[in-house]
């Protein structure tokens, strides 16, 4: 790596390991002849162990940015690296590998497979990583323990509450020990109590050294994180350390 993203991002260089490095990322959607400039030049560096909240009004590009960091989408221009790997240069297969091993995605709507039970849902990323059955079961049950669902392993999503479903989704995101957990409005579909529980779980995971980026509208939720990045119209409006 010769590029020095820290200058561009404006964040202080601490010398810690960089997990996400984003340089002048733009994302333009083409709706017929209309261009939607969802991201207009984002610069951002996230170091290992950070707990970052992304805030901003609806439509400002938060989800788009998360998708790009999560390697679900590619920037129209600019560069992004995960663990110092330039993911914008990878083919679809390698990108799938990054999604599988480097990042864990948590969605607002949980996105569990309804026909699989909790432990099978958590096993899915391990299947695509090529793990054997025994290994998968062991790892998945450990993770369900971590998120406090050891008594719900064989329940299907329809038999779980929202908060429980989101815990399963978090366990699934942790399956392949990713460098980074991305959560796009993880508490958006939860009541405030369940939301609190989820954010405490995130705090706990962060205390164990897991790097987290969450998108939220909720100031209280964001208050639990260590750094808040505000977006507006596809640009970084502010970036402040709060802890």
């Amino acid at each position, binding site marked *: 790596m010769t590029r020095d993203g820290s200058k561009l991002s404006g964040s202080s260089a601490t010398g810690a390991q960089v997990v996400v490095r984003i340089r002048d990322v733009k994302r333009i959607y083409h709706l017929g002849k209309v261009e939607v400039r969802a991201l207009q030049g984002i610069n951002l560096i996230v170091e290992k162990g950070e707990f970052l909240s992304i805030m901003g009004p609806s439509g400002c590009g938060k989800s788009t940015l998360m998708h790009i960091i999560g390697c*679900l989408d590619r920037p129209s221009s600019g560069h992004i690296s995960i663990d110092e790997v330039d993911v914008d240069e990878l083919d679809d297969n390698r990108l799938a*590998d990054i999604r599988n091993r480097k990042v864990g995605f948590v*969605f607002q709507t949980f996105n569990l497979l309804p026909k699989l039970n909790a432990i099978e849902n958590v096993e899915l990323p391990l299947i695509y990583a090529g793990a054997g059955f025994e290994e998968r079961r062991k790892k998945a049950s450990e993770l369900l323990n971590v998120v406090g669902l050891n008594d719900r392993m064989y329940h299907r999503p329809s038999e779980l509450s929202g908060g429980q479903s989101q815990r399963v989704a978090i366990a699934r995101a942790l399956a392949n020990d990713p460098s980074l957990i991305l959560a796009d409005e993880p508490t958006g579909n939860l009541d405030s109590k369940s939301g609190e529980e989820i954010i405490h779980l995130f705090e706990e995971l962060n205390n164990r050294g897991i790097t987290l980026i969450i998108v939220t509208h909720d100031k209280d939720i964001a208050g639990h994180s260590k750094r808040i990045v505000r977006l507006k119209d596809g640009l970084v409006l502010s970036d402040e350390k709060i802890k």
Partner: protein
Amino acid sequence: MINLLDPFKIAFGSLLSNKLRSLLTTLGVIIGVAAVITLVSMGEGAKSYILGQIGSWGMGANSLVIQPGTGDATIPELTLTYDDAVVLRQKIRHLQYLMPEFVGRGRCIYGKKSYIPSYTMGASADYPLAYKQKAVEGRFFSEADDASRRRVVVIGKTIVNKLFGSYSPIGEKITINGIGFTVIGVLEEKGTLLTNDMDDIALIPGSLSETVLGTNKIWEIFITVEKDDQVAQAIDDIEKILTARHHRVDFHTHTQQGMIDIINNILNAMTGIVSAIAAISLLVGGIGIMNIMLVAVTERTREIGIRKSIGAKQRDIFLQFVFESVLITMSGALIGIIIGTLAAWLIMHFLKMEAVIAWGAAYSACLVAFLVGTFFGVYPAVRASRLDPVEALRYEA
């Protein structure tokens, strides 16, 4: 790199969670395969039955049959006579047995009981050996009986039952078409060939045919020679002898091989038709499967998005859907094989024949189902594998 068992399991899982639809999807394949298996099993069963019957009637490879007519007319003129049979017996080289059939109608009367057997037949003394059916009670008539026109008759079990009930008929006097006969033997039971009762038969010396049955004309002459490779020579002899006697070719010969060829030709034609039906039904079934797989891909867009978001590669998604399509078709084929075999067994059971399990057809059905499932599964699977993860996640069913 994910191993192949996992996408297989995933496919199997989604198949089971949608049992009814999977079954309906593959109905075309089930029906096609079941029809083929039924028909082929029945055909094979009928073939082995017919060949078995031919064998049990003495039709070895050393045998041949002479029939009147050129073989193409539907109702041939009966050109072969008793005298022809006498001359052939003298002149065919390496002759073993010669058995002319003079078939007529004979009313048999014993005391007050009267009965007309299906077959009242003039025969030669070679009958028991040529047709492998001996007299189990009494004896068969001899060459001397035939030559001296002795009025003796050998009867089958059905006639015994009709006229004598449980009494032994040996030595009893009956009349056939008003002419007095002595029963000297009872034939070994043969059962039925297709629907004909082969025990409903009375055999008299061929020399009496004209007197008793009113005809000296022959339906066919069954001949065996000493060795299989002498059949061609015998045919040669027959053609020379009969052409010289009749001054024209008004007869034809069949060998056992010829019969087997005919049966095989019929069965092959049947197999051809069945295969065509199968091909069409599998094609229709395959299109049905492609259609339902395309629906499944659309319905499961979100699932595909989720799988991709957690690291499924295009190949993983592709395999999942191809396996699902192959599994559906193969299950259909298996169900079809089971249903078809049962149906064939049932039908043959009612026809009092044995069904033969059509292994060959079953293997081909599986293979074809595999190919159909793969072929028609590829396009939907490719569509699934190429879905954009973000778009797919956004999809609302």
